[in-house]
């Protein structure tokens, strides 16, 4: 009661009516929701949609297994990279964050070891499926680390996709293409979660 009295004395110079206070709060809410929508759109769902579609397309092409399928897969991946760059450039001008350099260093370390060191010791790339599974798991390591670092949702996406690809590769090799396709679906759908619910 005393605090309310003090509040009244403090703001009495501004002479705010209840109606004005209500209008102000409404304007605040409108502006808040507009900014949240803008933030959600820039948080990265586009990348997940792009790479989810790329993975699904690559799985289908692999399933068709025509000679030279790997060339088509390279082109699909290249298209994914180009699309990601375009999205990155388009969105980089709207919102910016300070880079977490330690996190980037961890990611770089995992990739360097994953592409440059481990394959020299283990015969991982004998077949397309083994190479594909290896690369998916390598990138999912980054999601898992990102999940530990930033948001648990990324951790679950990383673990789920790793489980799906390992199940396909180890348990159902004749249906590996389907597990690869499902990984793409999970990635694609996670983009919608980030757009609608993340924060």
């Amino acid at each position: 009661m005393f605090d309310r009295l003090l509040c009244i004395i403090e703001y009495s110079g501004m002479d705010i009516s209840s109606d004005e206070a209500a209008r102000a709060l409404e304007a605040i809410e409108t502006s808040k929701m507009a900014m949240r929508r803008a933030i959600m759109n820039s948080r990265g769902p586009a990348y997940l949609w792009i790479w989810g579609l790329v993975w699904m397309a690559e799985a289908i092409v692999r399933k068709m297994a025509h000679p030279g399928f790997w060339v088509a897969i390279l082109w699909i991946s290249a298209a994914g990279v180009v699309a990601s760059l375009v999205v990155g450039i388009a969105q980089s001008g709207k919102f910016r964050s300070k880079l977490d350099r330690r996190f980037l260093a961890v990611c770089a370390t995992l990739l360097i070891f994953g592409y440059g060191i481990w394959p020299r010791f283990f015969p991982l790339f004998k077949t397309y499926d083994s190479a594909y599974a290896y690369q998916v798991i390598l990138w999912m390591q980054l999601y898992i680390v990102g999940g530990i670092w930033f948001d648990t949702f990324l951790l679950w996406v990383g673990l789920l996709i790793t489980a799906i690809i390992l199940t396909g590769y180890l348990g159902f090799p004749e249906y590996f293409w389907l597990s690869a396709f499902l990984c793409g679906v999970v990635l694609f759908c996670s983009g919608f979660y980030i757009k609608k619910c993340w924060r």
Partner: protein
Amino acid sequence: MDQLDPIIHQPARLQIMSALCQLSENERVDFSTMKDLIGLTDGNLGAHLATLESKGYLALSKEFVVRKPKTFISVTPAGRGAFTSHVAALRAILLPK
């Protein structure tokens, strides 16, 4: 103690602060995006941002994006605190007597 802030209470500045307080501590938004969100002209928005910056409620920085200079806006801890206090004071007005 929550109190109304006459600088923040101006309608356009209220919207600006409300939008900026949705950003995380490390985030900043560019001038054009803010202009589209609030619906002000360049000069109008610039004047309001200058007022808020002079009070220490937000920080402006110029950065290059694809070789073009852009102005980015972020809210300061002081600004976040002042806005939170202002909102609480507004809500207190609407409390049943």
